């Protein structure tokens, strides 16, 4: 079974069809998706602003990372669950969409970027206040801002179907 056939199977399932053909459910899930994105990316942005030196001067990076983590994870949860339901309803269409593939690519890049930060910099994030933000962490901050902007941009473009 090819990946496309799997996507077609998912899209044709009862739940997929019900979501797609509903008047209310699809746009409500879509709204939850956008709000989930805005909250998770909006909160991660504060750490990125700190790392890049663009803002949040008085708040240590360690606090922005650890204190906000449960909340941006909550936003992530909303985003991923609502995103999975939207995908369910149009999996085959999305499989063929160039913009959706780009969105997934940048989502993976954003994830790898976060993983790099987690491995290299999270263990010594408390020292950023006294020793300054390492150059590498600043790069991670800029990449995060860029990758998430691309995810949002390609995501919106996907919804327009302007493949």
């Amino acid at each position: 079974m090819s990946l496309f056939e799997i996507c077609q199977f998912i899209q044709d399932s009862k739940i997929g069809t019900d979501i797609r053909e509903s008047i209310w459910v699809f746009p409500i899930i879509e709204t939850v998706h956008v709000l989930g994105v805005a909250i998770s990316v909006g909160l991660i942005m504060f750490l990125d602003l700190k790392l890049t030196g663009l803002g949040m001067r008085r708040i240590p990076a360690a606090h922005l990372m650890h204190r906000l983590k449960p909340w941006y994870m909550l936003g992530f949860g909303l985003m991923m669950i609502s995103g999975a339901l939207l995908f369910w309803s149009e999996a085959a269409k999305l499989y063929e969409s160039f913009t959706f593939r780009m969105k997934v690519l940048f989502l993976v890049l954003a994830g790898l970027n976060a993983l790099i930060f987690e491995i290299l910099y999270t263990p010594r994030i408390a020292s950023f206040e006294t020793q300054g933000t390492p150059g590498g962490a600043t790069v991670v901050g800029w990449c995060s801002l860029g990758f998430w902007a691309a995810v949002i941009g390609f995501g919106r473009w996907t919804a327009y179907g302007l493949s």
Partner: protein
Amino acid sequence: MDLLTVFTWFDKSWLGELIRNSTWAFAAIEVVHLFGLTVLLGTVTVVNLRLAGFGLRQQSAAEVAHDAMPWTYVGIVVTMASGFLLFVSEALKCYDSPPFFLKMGLLALSLMVTFAIQRRMANGSVEFSLVVGRLLATLTIALWFGVGLAGRAIAFF
């Protein structure tokens, strides 16, 4: 001059025509609208979490509100400028859409509540008790979610 005249003027303006007749403009402006929305909801969330006693608790409410303030402005300016362009390109459609007026009403209310609270937090002139803080934070977040839902509904009514 009634509202319909104003909306018609926007709808027929060269700017409205330009955006409407372009293949990419509307979608591109909406992407910018989403960027602004992300920044705005991010700052509203950070500030209101602190107000409700969650999130950045090691800082004072004044510090959080103060550091977040420039980004609240950035979010609002980007969202409203792009939102205005979207409106101009379909002003007559908006005129016939009850959710559009609901969204504008909720938006005005959200802006007033957000700024009234965040400015007082930032200059430290008011200390909210935890109960009042939680009520205000819930109200603010609910108002902004209402703006989002009403905005989405414009496409349907």
